[in-house]
């Protein structure tokens, strides 16, 4: 009851963080991904591409590319439009223009494991195998499981004009070419120089430097362990050496077909056929 009262008063004043209940405008553009899939990097790439004059850093990124989990309803409603909004939400039909970033779930699991240690949600000695079991069950994140988040967006929007699917791994291999896709999606006439500049200003090295000085100015790193960085290895394929075989098998068993559809080579498992069966059918 007290909780409801407090929530009610916050609602009345517009001070609550709307998260999934964000009031969406038809011209909003969303950067969506499952957590630990390159969302922050994409956020900086787009911020540096679209708003270079604002010199995006960790101190102002929440306002440049707003996060409905970190800002109040009132603040969000007053931002200039069209807004470019950061999100981890699973499918929401109100989002009409979506850049969706997907990453190999084996690397996502590993990255989330380290992030949970940084946030002191688990301690250093927490067994990774147990974490992966919970990751597959969707228990480590409020944004549904990796498979539910990815399949929910891709199956509903794969051929919609307002949807751009990017793979983190492709962005790593050829950042400028993938950013050019984003520019085209935004109908932005960006010269190669402008693209290169945005890529340079969003590099992992530069983000690491910024994190060192600004970690306490950003909601996502404030009140977390400072001995573990937020911007971690920033490279694909760590799972091959760092994830135990049983954990790899667990992930491939759960989402093998969906992973293969996305171009992530996965073992021979055909379990979890359901998640990808729509995609496999529509694309064959």
């Amino acid at each position, binding site marked *: 009851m007290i909780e*409801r*009262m407090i*929530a*009610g008063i916050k*609602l*009345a004043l517009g001070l609550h963080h709307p998260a999934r*209940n964000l009031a969406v405008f038809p011209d909003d553009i969303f950067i969506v991904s499952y957590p630990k899939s390159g969302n922050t990097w994409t956020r900086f790439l787009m911020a540096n591409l679209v708003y270079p004059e604002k010199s995006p850093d960790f101190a102002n990124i929440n306002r440049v590319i707003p996060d409905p989990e970190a800002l109040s309803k009132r603040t969000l409603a007053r931002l200039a439009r069209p807004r470019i909004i950061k999100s981890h939400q*699973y*499918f929401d*039909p109100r989002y009409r223009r979506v850049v969706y970033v997907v990453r190999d779930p084996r690397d996502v699991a590993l990255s989330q494991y380290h992030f949970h240690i940084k946030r002191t949600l688990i301690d250093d000695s927490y067994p990774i195998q147990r974490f992966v079991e919970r990751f597959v069950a*969707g228990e480590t994140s409020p944004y*549904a*499981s990796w*498979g*539910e988040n990815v*399949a*929910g967006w*891709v*199956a*509903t*929007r*794969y*051929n919609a004009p307002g949807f751009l699917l990017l793979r983190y791994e492709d962005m790593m291999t050829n950042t400028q070419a993938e950013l050019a896709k984003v520019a085209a999606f935004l109908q932005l006439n960006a010269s190669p120089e402008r693209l290169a500049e945005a890529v340079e200003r969003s590099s992992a090295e530069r983000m690491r430097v910024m994190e060192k000085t600004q970690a306490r100015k950003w909601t996502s790193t404030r009140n977390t362990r400072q001995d573990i960085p937020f911007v971690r290895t920033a490279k694909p394929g760590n799972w091959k050496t760092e994830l135990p075989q049983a954990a790899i098998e667990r992930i491939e068993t759960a989402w093998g077909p969906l992973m293969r559809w996305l*171009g992530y080579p996965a073992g021979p498992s055909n379990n*979890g*056929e*359901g*998640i*990808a*069966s*729509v*995609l496999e*059918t*529509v*694309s*064959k």
Partner: protein
Amino acid sequence: MIYGIRQILKYLAGTDIAGRSLAVRPDDTFLVSYPRSGNTWTRFLIANLLHPGEPVTFANIEYLVPDTEAQSSRHLKRIPGPRFIKSHEYFDHRYPRVIYIVRDPRDVVLSYYDFQRKYQQIADCYPLEPYVSDFVNGRLSSADWGTWAENVASWIATRHNRKNFLLLRYEDMIADTPGELLRIADFLEHKTSPRELDQVIERSSAERMRELEERQSDLWVSTKNKRKDIPFIGTASAGDWRSKLPAASVLEIETAWGPLLRFLNYELATNEGLRAAREVRELYSR
């Protein structure tokens, strides 16, 4: 502003519509479909299956299988578990156990067209063809559920072939009601007999539901204060689109959703669906 204050007062009193902010419990079962896809019929089937002692009517259905989009948070909170809840929501990862009913969108759109005129959400003279375009492109005044394809694909892509998810086709339910009802009973781990199933089907028949609607339309939240000249219970049949839907509208639906229709084993009447599937393959071939 006034609207905002009213919403907040409602929220504090618990009289706000539960909808998507429903507090989900681990033992809940959800009956989900896009609107006009046989949800009310299935609601009656399930309620009659689980409550053989009291024939289900429009006066008690909101207690037996409540509607999260028509009832308050308080009403739903007071329903004892395990609850069976009706919903039209697109994918919600919190729903632990789901029966999802899908119906051929070419029939759904015809039924929705009548329904939205009944609810006076569109004018009587609004032509069918632009209505179908609105339906396909997510421009209906009741757009909260996503488009038909978004709603269906969001559930199937995330939950199909998983345990705790049962996919039913309305057309199969029409063609073989006892067979599909038995699948529901198995899914709910509810022991039953052929005689019981017959009674459930009888008590949930379109004729009986039409009779109930005539007598009780003012007792039910979904028909109260709505036009009486258009019934809530529609034709309760499959395949009307073949004679009633304009060819251009069939083409528009199949062009947009051909691949998903094919996946659900709905026969395509045009070549556009297959063409759409080919284009998708080209778009995503690596």
